[in-house]
């Protein structure tokens, strides 16, 4: 047991922190990554990160990775989240990469992965469909085999960043007769392929983040298939475990708590004293401090399991639940601290901390839904983790 990073990891942390500090503008406080400016900065930072060899830090060198340990990756992810630095293509780096490394052909790895490592491409994830969200295995997007490849028809929905993506990985039904889990295959497609149409969906915070992605007679080559035909469900499921692990929540939370603490010291309450002196406020800070630490350690546990070759499962679900509930609590607290000013959004006169928190209160609502809802994750903990019977 050792609750500390190694000297080398700590040194790497300082290096990353120092470098990010130099790259990001003075007074940098993060950006709405759905905005045009946010996307521009994302691409810019991505290229720079690739140049440092950090973009795909833990990937093997032969695919353009840095061959770093899981823990070094954790340190890097923490620093990126703490710095609110854009530039990471989560779906390609955390999900597609590891999946191709296990299930892809050598050819697929060699052609698809290096461009990711160089920061040249954006990927999106086509899993959910209008009638298949939590019940992903019921998906209906139809993929028929032809002599020289595949034809795809159907619709994906909630595809984050599809409007910016160069490539999509998706699950489609290749066998109409098999039981639902056994008729699904995993594919990759160039988004410029004729017949793929991306329709924007504006979210409740007013941003264009996700989309509906329509496939109409889309012809794909044979090598669009990853792994075995009809075995895609099991490939897709590995990937979800990678997606659920994450230290970004606690690192982001730490940054937020620091930001709010500074605010509480400056903000004068109705009694003429700084809000930070109010014992109720202090108590809330302490509670959130504990919440952040819980999320951090459980995320470490997930990363550690991966580092020793175990597949985290209920641990990843617990980490996701702790992290996303933390985001919602922090957003609420950030709004409350401002008193009446807490209702002022981005761009408003007098808005504290750029009006970030009332907006975050809206966006954080989606965190307990995206990438597996809290209810589904609790079900995983109860059944797969604790062995309780399925309902």
């Amino acid at each position: 047991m050792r609750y500390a990073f190694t000297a080398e990891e700590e040194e790497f942390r300082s290096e990353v922190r120092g470098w990010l500090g130099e790259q990001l503008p003075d007074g940098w406080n993060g950006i709405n990554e759905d905005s045009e400016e946010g996307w521009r900065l994302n691409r810019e930072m991505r290229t720079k990160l690739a140049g440092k060899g950090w973009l795909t830090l833990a990937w093997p060198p032969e695919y353009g990775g840095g061959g770093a340990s899981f823990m070094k990756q954790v340190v890097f992810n923490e620093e990126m989240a703490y710095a609110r630095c854009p530039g990471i293509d989560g779906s390609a780096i955390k999900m597609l990469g590891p999946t191709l490394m296990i299930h892809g052909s050598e050819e697929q790895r060699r052609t698809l992965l290096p461009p990711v490592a160089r920061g040249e491409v954006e990927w999106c994830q086509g899993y959910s469909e209008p009638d298949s969200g939590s019940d992903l295995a019921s998906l209906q997007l139809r993929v028929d085999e032809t002599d020289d490849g595949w034809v795809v028809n159907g619709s994906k929905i909630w595809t984050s960043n599809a409007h910016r993506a160069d490539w999509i990985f998706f699950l489609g039904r290749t066998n109409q007769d098999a039981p639902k889990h056994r008729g699904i295959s995993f594919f990759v497609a160039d988004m410029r392929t004729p017949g793929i149409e991306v329709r924007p969906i504006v979210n409740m915070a007013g941003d264009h983040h996700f989309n509906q992605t329509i496939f109409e007679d889309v012809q794909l080559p044979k090598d669009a298939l990853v792994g075995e035909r009809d075995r895609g469900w099991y490939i897709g499921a590995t990937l979800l475990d990678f997606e659920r692990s994450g230290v970004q929540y606690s690192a982001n939370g730490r940054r937020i708590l620091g930001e709010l603490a500074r605010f509480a010291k400056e903000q004068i309450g109705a009694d003429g004293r700084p809000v930070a002196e109010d014992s109720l406020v202090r108590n809330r800070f302490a509670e959130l401090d504990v919440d952040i630490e819980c999320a951090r350690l459980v995320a470490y546990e997930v990363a550690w399991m991966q580092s020793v070759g175990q597949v985290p499962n209920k641990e990843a679900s617990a980490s996701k639940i702790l992290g996303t509930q933390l985001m919602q609590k922090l957003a609420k607290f950030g709004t409350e601290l401002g008193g009446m000013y807490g209702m002022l959004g981005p761009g408003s006169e007098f808005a504290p901390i750029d009006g970030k928190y009332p907006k975050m209160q809206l966006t954080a609502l989606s965190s307990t839904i995206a990438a597996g809802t809290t209810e589904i994750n609790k079900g995983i903990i109860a059944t797969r983790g604790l062995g309780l019977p399925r309902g």
Partner: protein
Amino acid sequence: MDIGLSETQQLIRNSAREFLEENCDTQYVRAMEEDEVGHTEELWDQIAELGWLGLTVPEEYGGAGMTFSELAVLLEETGAAMLPGPFFSTAVIGAEALKLAGSDEQKTELLAKLATGKLKMALAFHEKAAAWAPESVSEMTATQTDDGWILNGEKRFVQDGAASDMLIVAARTGEDPKSGITLFLVENDNSNVESRELKTTGSDRMSVMSFGEVSVPKGAVLGEVNGGWPILEKLFQYGAAGKCAEMAGAGQKLLDNTVDYVQNRVQFGRPIGSFQAIQHHAADMAIEVQAGRQLARQAAWFLGEGLDATRQVALAKAYLSEAYPRICATAHQCHGAIGFTHEYDLHLWTRRSTGQRLAFGDTKLHQETLARSVGL
């Protein structure tokens, strides 16, 4: 004890629900969010016609002479429908202010106009401190002249300020925090009154209003000179109770919408409403709506009967300021991704919940009242 609605109250509820379904659907609410003014005169005239504005205005001044209980029943419905426009500011705050503190002359002239839809009102109370406390009135001054007063200063968080015809302005006229505040009725057609919008995430129609050398006649004082704070305290009680009624009504609407959705959304071959996790969410919402509605109605009844409602209002607002945003969040959780879209209506309620939670005192403020009331 009679927990039920009277015949009149039922009538109010049913006719309001019917009218709002017809004339104030979410399409209208969305259109008004984008609209510069934020409401249509057509709908305003209709609700005046229905007698909603003068519901608690005494009959001698042209109103329906009902109690705050009846108004609260109506507010449950306007809250559920998110009725755009200065209805709350006028029918709750404006009407109660005039009833509480207006001179005979003011009542005769203004209440009649208010009840017939010819006088939209708003409260200009907050300044920099923006707490629901006397300290919030600090820089706004009123200087007495031979024939009246001159007002100078800036007010923040003036809800419906831009759309109103008349503002109730709290100004500092003495040093003592509580006994140095005077209320003034200021017409909003004065070129020395300027308004700028404060952008909230909830379309709350908040303004900053600045007053530069605004002269008002002697008769513009509402209540006594330096007697503003006790009136405001009482007004905040009506405001808080009114917001609770809105939240209780909106909570019921969200519960209904959610129950409807989970009955129709099928995953794993069955309605998601058949999963116990979703059933518990819906039950949690139902419990909070039920408790919240009782607390809100109790507070309204105490106010309507002219009893001391300090405790009842604090109980309701302390509860609903937490429970209602939670009801919104649970509704989202039950809806999944569809509820996170701009196209789906759920966010219309959610985005308003922050303003409702904060209006007339947040949880903490009302908890403090309760702590004192239990003897601490």
